[in-house]
């Protein structure tokens, strides 16, 4: 009897934790998806028909056991890169990702030249 009680409690908490984990990763994923028919809103923030359908699809895919990356790939395949807020590092986005580093290096070099070399 004790074992049965323990099992019931275990299953209850396990399902609770599992469903919470799934809903938090659902939120995480939908926050990184652009609502294509809204203006400047993520799927998570939007209440449009399109966004609501996407939320259901993300939940279904998580329940099917797909990983976050697989879900992004699935949606990118259908809607293109634009649906992702976080663009992948590839030949089309090299400049986008490297420009801040480049500007940082240039800024550092200017500061170095103006203040350190001149001081010496």
């Amino acid at each position: 009897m004790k074992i049965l009680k323990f099992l019931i409690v275990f299953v209850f908490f396990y399902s609770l934790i599992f469903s919470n984990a799934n809903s938090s990763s659902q939120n995480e994923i939908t926050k990184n998806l652009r609502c294509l028919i809204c203006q400047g809103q993520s799927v998570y923030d939007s209440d449009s028909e399109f966004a609501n359908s996407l939320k259901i699809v993300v939940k279904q895919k998580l329940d099917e056991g797909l990983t976050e990356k697989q879900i992004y790939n699935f949606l990118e395949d259908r809607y293109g890169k634009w649906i992702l807020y976080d663009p992948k590092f590839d030949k089309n986005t090299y400049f986008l990702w490297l420009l801040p580093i480049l500007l940082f290096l240039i800024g550092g070099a200017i500061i170095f030249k103006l203040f350190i070399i001149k001081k010496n």
Partner: protein
Amino acid sequence: MKIKFFPFFLIIIFLMIFFIFYKGLQNSNIYTPTIQDEKSIPNFKAKVFETGKIINSTQIFEEEKFYLFNIWASWCLPCRDEHSYLVELSNKKNLKIIGLNYKDDIKKAKNFLKELNNPYNTIITDKNGTIAVEWGAYGVPETFLIYNRKIVKKIIGPLNQSSFLEIEGLVK
């Protein structure tokens, strides 16, 4: 001669940034997804509108045949505008029209078809919009021309005279 490297470098950087933004200004700010040519249709299961029976997509779309897959709803006003084109296209012998009734009330959808005629060979329902997502659609109306289980053309928004003529030309 000492070359002034920094001002020269800064000018180059500013010119590059100017050029990128200038090019960006010329781009359209209306997003249309890029459609890969000859993309295969998705596999899905759906309820048949009239009977409520579950049907697989492979049972709907046969090989070596033209299909027009139209996403519609009775609450969608542009769907009314394009309906006459669908009715006209339904007369074509080598084209089957499949309808996806999107987030709709069955009763209202039936009344819509009663009022404007039913051009569809088969209608399936999408109560929560997930089948439309499988197709990469993001609203109603949207139409896909399919041949050999591959998407030949995608029309976002209602059909008009030019898309109607295009479909007619492709199906011939």
